[in-house]
């Protein structure tokens, strides 16, 4: 095919499709929240003492941290989908949740006697965390990968990993409402491990699904 004829063919199809990427991202975000919530409501449910838990700072810290992670990763997705955009502030925002978690861990270690650290760290729900949290993140991961497919991520594995981070942020938010282990010492060990599972899956799927 002659390049000049290709140009003629492409130019006949000039007008831009209507729906913007921003709209698509909001759609993907809404679907992700709804899917994660449904899975949570149907199969997991909140812990029985959720009303009193809501009054404790340790419990409240969990969804705050996970939502911070979700927000930052969601923001980073908007960059990853556009070729040539600089990660810059989006990448820095991803550090907010880990930094806050670090501060919480240090605070916890000054409050709780060191003899109890191990016990707090292991908690009672470690295996649940490693299975239920990734399971709750699966639906959102699909939604975010679908969104990325609408665009042009030039680093498919990396973009898939960011989708995994956003999905894990949502999944962990719902999981946190179920889990009775509230100590930052528990959160700092098991939540990142569960997140790593989702990020790895996202990255592997991204490599396959996000090529264009």
């Amino acid at each position, binding site marked *: 095919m002659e*390049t000049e004829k290709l140009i*003629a063919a492409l130019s006949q199809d000039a007008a831009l499709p209507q729906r913007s990427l921003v709209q698509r991202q909001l759609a993907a975000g809404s679907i992700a929240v709804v899917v994660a919530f449904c899975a949570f409501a149907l199969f997991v449910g909140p812990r029985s003492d959720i009303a009193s838990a809501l009054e404790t700072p340790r419990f409240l810290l969990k969804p705050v941290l996970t939502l911070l992670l979700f927000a930052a990763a969601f923001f980073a997705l908007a960059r990853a989908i556009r070729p040539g955009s600089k990660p810059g502030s989006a990448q820095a925002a991803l550090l907010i949740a880990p930094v806050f978690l670090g501060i919480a861990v240090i605070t916890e270690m000054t409050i709780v006697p060191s003899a109890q650290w191990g016990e707090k760290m292991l908690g009672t729900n470690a295996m649940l965390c490693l299975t239920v949290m990734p399971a709750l993140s699966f639906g959102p991961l699909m939604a975010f990968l679908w969104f990325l497919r609408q665009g042009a991520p030039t680093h498919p594995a990396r973009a898939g990993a960011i989708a995994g981070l956003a999905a894990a942020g949502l999944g962990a938010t719902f999981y946190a409402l179920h889990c009775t282990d509230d100590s930052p010492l528990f959160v700092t060990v098991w939540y990142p491990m569960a997140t790593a599972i989702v990020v790895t899956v996202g990255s592997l799927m991204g490599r396959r699904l996000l090529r264009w």
Partner: protein
Amino acid sequence: MVALDETRLADLLRRANRGDAAAYADFYRTLLPALRQIAHGVVRTVGGRPSDVEDVVQETMIAIHLKRHTWRESEMVGPWIRAISRYKSVDVMRRRGRHGASVDIDVVTETLAAPTIEDPTARTDLERYVSRLGGKPGAIVKAIGLDGQEIVEVARRMSMSEGAVRVALHRGLRKLAALRTQEAD
């Protein structure tokens, strides 16, 4: 780095987004030398043949076309074009498996290459794919892309409305890109 006329290209693409076909054709013609340079740099880096360059360029143009909604009109068009061009160049060469398996998109740098002499009659990859497209979209991409017919002509010949031809053309171009990605797997 390959020079791109930022102001002119952004202006043309903005007009194209509003349906200006002439501006859109101008956009690609303005871009073509730069795309050839970038493609040439990548092809040479991975040890491809000079004849690969035009395939890479055509793939890049289709990619730009199908992904043009990822450009924000408020942002620079140059970095966006470079990123797509590098990604597609590496992608095409990797798919051909010509020493390409280890090509890392971050490692490939654009080199200022001497303009290559193109043989305009050469049968490119794209042609093979177009011949595999079926149905109306296939016939329409072939008529407009290979035979250089106008939308009006095609619409009359196939007794379709111009709008329907446009839709089918768009669908055909997307299918074309999909065919190529599938073949990579």
